[in-house]
């Protein structure tokens, strides 16, 4: 047991840093209703700024720290407040996409500045240790623990005793009333963002010495804080703090344990995501209240009526696809991959566009499909049967993810899918039954009827056409009509006698099927497949960001647009040899996604019901407003 004592100390130390990030996240979410997926990226940027000032420019650590926190806090606090303000009335999907766009942009900027390789991050805290109860403790750890505790206690006192703190708690209940009692709601929100973002910056700077200057790892570390925030119901700071510390103790202890038990080796990294998914999966109804959902506009997008695939559009597209092997011989594999991604796009748009649900784990379904088809072929199945089997195997996985989707919507569903994707990536992908028991990629084979690059390329659009046919069948059939109806007015559909809870499940299953097939097609293209091909961050996130760029919501995107997006995501990067330009392309995607989210709230054909309109509803105080209707004493920052 005493072997594990040091693990507790380091767990508490790591937990304190994650707790700081998580508390900042909760704070800004509660005050604005926008869940900041870019929180970790902001922490990474802060680490970068500190690195610049302290290590490169040689400023004293304390001065560098102050400049970093003030600059990052103010710049991003003000920026995020504006973005949050403008997307407050957007759909849940667009809210999620807006901060994902910022996350992608910041990560690319970070990578352009500091490169993709982890740099050693100099320690700026005292490295001496002392012994207490036979445990070697670093002063650094003591400082971090004290800082986490001080901020948690300080914020709790701030919320209880200051006008601004009380205002931040109150603004969740009723932003308009905050205005009526003489506090400027914008000021309250802005300071909530500044504090929240500053917390992310503190976490970024203090964690960096342990893991080095690496944008992706820093970003992911804050995502671990999402689990802590979930334990705190995305509202209570003390519980969030406690959750973060407990999770990180768990990570440290299982990390130590797995050193002697190799089968446990992926548990530590998967634990935080498993916690997040389980909390979302098991939380009782009404336990998690989506903040700011009541401010959402009832947007009426009048769809375009004619939806026939005209020969005028189809002929040039088919001609182009036929011509690809002749035009782009040098990059055939990239173009084939691009074609596969069109199928992934189709699968995602089934969820995001038709069913109005955000999925951030599409690559996970693809990974399941890829592994399934490999094993099926390995067991002697014909290639085409294995392809179908890959889709079918993915269906139960889709159904499993959909369990939270039955009750959760909007940002919580996005978080559930994100955590599921990250859990699968860190845990299941490591299992021998997925990608084998050694780190080498699996060798995949092409079907006998399409061995050549050209033949394999031509096969993909044919499979794609079948998938498109299935999607269109769903879109135009009863299910499509039901999903559109549910997106427009769930309450009306329910009152007609439809059990709407099961509709998202069906949509997820169909989407998983298509993604599974796409996954199975990926490997044989280059001959090998490995877990690294299916990363949730950034590929799944980029897919979602790209999906919203084309066309209007609520319709399966046109084939041409999906093709364009796939080319941008997969084919174009193959032509770019410079790392910086590659990051620049991602930056462009990120910025465009933010722009798309902002534009969705000012699209011309929307009819807005202003928030808090004196609806002709017979209101019993606290009954009609979903936020106010939380159980008494329920969800507020305590």
């Amino acid at each position: 047991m005493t072997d594990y004592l040091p693990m507790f100390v380091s767990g508490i130390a790591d937990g304190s840093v994650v707790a700081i990030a998580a508390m900042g996240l909760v704070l800004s979410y509660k005050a604005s209703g926008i869940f900041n997926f870019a929180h970790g990226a902001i922490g990474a940027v802060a680490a970068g700024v500190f690195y610049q000032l302290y290590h490169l420019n040689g400023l004293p650590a304390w001065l560098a720290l102050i400049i970093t926190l003030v600059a990052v806090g103010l710049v991003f606090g003000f920026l995020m407040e504006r973005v949050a303000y403008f997307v407050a009335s957007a759909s849940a999907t667009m809210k999620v996409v807006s901060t994902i766009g910022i996350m992608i942009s910041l990560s690319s900027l970070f990578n352009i500045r500091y490169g993709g390789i982890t740099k050693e991050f100099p320690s700026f805290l005292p490295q001496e240790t002392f012994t207490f109860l036979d445990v070697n403790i670093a002063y650094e750890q003591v400082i971090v623990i004290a800082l986490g505790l001080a901020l948690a206690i300080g914020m709790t006192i701030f919320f209880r005793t200051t006008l601004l703190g009380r205002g931040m708690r109150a603004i969740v209940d009723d932003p308009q009333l905050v205005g009526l009692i003489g506090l400027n709601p914008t000021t309250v929100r802005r300071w909530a963002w500044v504090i929240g973002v500053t917390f992310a910056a503190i976490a970024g700077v203090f964690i960096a010495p342990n893991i080095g200057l690496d944008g992706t790892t820093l970003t992911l570390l804050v995502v671990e804080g999402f689990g802590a925030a979930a334990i705190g119901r995305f509202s209570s700071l003390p519980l969030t703090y406690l959750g973060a510390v407990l999770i990180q103790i768990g990570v440290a202890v299982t990390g130590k344990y797995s050193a002697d038990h190799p089968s446990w080796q992926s548990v530590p990294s998967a634990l935080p995501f498993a916690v997040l998914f389980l909390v979302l999966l098991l939380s009782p109804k009404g336990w998690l209240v989506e903040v700011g959902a009541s401010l959402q506009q009832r947007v009426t997008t009048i769809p375009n009526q004619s939806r026939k695939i005209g020969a005028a559009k189809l002929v040039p597209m088919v001609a182009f696809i036929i011509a690809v092997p002749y035009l782009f011989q040098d990059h055939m594999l990239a173009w084939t991959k691009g074609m596969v991604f069109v199928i992934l796009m189709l699968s995602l748009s089934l969820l995001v566009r038709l069913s109005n649900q955000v999925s951030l784990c599409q690559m996970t379904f693809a990974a399941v499909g890829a592994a399934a088809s490999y094993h099926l072929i390995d067991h002697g199945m014909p290639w085409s049967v294995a392809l179908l089997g890959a889709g079918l195997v993915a269906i139960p996985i889709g159904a499993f993810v959909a369990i939270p989707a039955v009750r959760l919507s909007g940002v919580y569903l996005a978080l559930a899918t994100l955590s599921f994707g990250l859990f699968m990536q860190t845990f299941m992908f490591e299992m021998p039954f997925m990608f084998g028991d050694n780190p080498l990629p699996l060798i995949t084979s092409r079907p006998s009827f399409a061995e050549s690059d050209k033949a394999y390329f031509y096969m993909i659009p044919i499979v794609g056409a079948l998938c498109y046919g299935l999607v269109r069948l769903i879109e135009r059939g009863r299910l499509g009509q039901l999903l559109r109806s549910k997106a427009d007015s769930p309450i009306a559909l329910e009152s007609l006698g439809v059990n709407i809870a099961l509709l998202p499940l069906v949509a997820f299953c169909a989407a998983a099927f298509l993604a599974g097939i796409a996954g199975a097609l990926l490997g044989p293209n280059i001959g090998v497949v490995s877990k690294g091909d299916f990363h949730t961050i950034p590929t799944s996130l980029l897919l979602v960001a790209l999906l919203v760029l084309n066309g209007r919501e609520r319709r399966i995107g046109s084939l041409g647009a999906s093709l364009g997006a796939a080319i941008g995501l997969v084919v174009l990067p193959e032509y770019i040899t410079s790392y910086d330009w590659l990051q620049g392309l991602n930056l462009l995607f990120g910025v465009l996604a933010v722009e798309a989210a902002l534009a969705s709230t000012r699209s011309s054909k929307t009819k807005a019901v202003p928030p808090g309109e004196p609806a002709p509803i017979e209101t019993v105080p606290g009954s009609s407003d979903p936020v106010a209707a939380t159980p008494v004493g329920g969800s507020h920052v305590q």
Partner: protein
Amino acid sequence: MLELENVTVGYTSASKTLDGLSLSVPDGSVVALLGPNGAGKTTTLRTASRMIPLQSGRITFEGKDVSKLAPHQMSKLGLCHVPEGRGIFPALSVRDNIALFGRGMPPSEAVDKAIDAFAFIEHRIDLPAGSLSGGERQMLALVRAWLTRPKIVLLDEVSMGLAPLIVDEVYAFIRRLAEEGISLLMVEQYVDRVRRFADHIYLMRSGEIRFSGTPHELGSEEDILGHYLGAALQE
């Protein structure tokens, strides 16, 4: 004190909720807005406290044009709007509500004053405001009007859904505000209460003022019922 001149607002450009409405609340007076559901009374109050943007017209407060101000700026000028049924933060404790209401004074002093106004507050002070009964919520919301020493208070349906005995208590407090010289603009659907109390009455229907005058000029109960219940009464 407060004047609305030719005010037009609408949630969409197509439908206007208030159409060229004018009304004024003189210094230290009690003005009541009556009318059936959907007449635009609440919208009038929300427009006056600058929660709803103007399409045309002008609003002045103590002679100053306030058409472009935000609600929190109006509040600082001394206008206190107690919205319908929503004047409190249900998830916060009663104490935190009072501390928020009494900006600029120490929270303990605000709490003392609130208890002075309504004794029940003392026993509920650490409970979430959402657990209060309808009448208690309304009284807590009214406490704000007392703490912030406003020049004018806008009250929206303070008696809605409350039992008559509670309404008596609420009105006693409102009378106290009026006696202290605070101007009142109140929306009320119960006629009898306000006609004994108001200096001036506006009767609204369909976003327009249909009657303006003293309670005395308002006429008999039957006439008012006619406005509320419509022609059905005559059948």
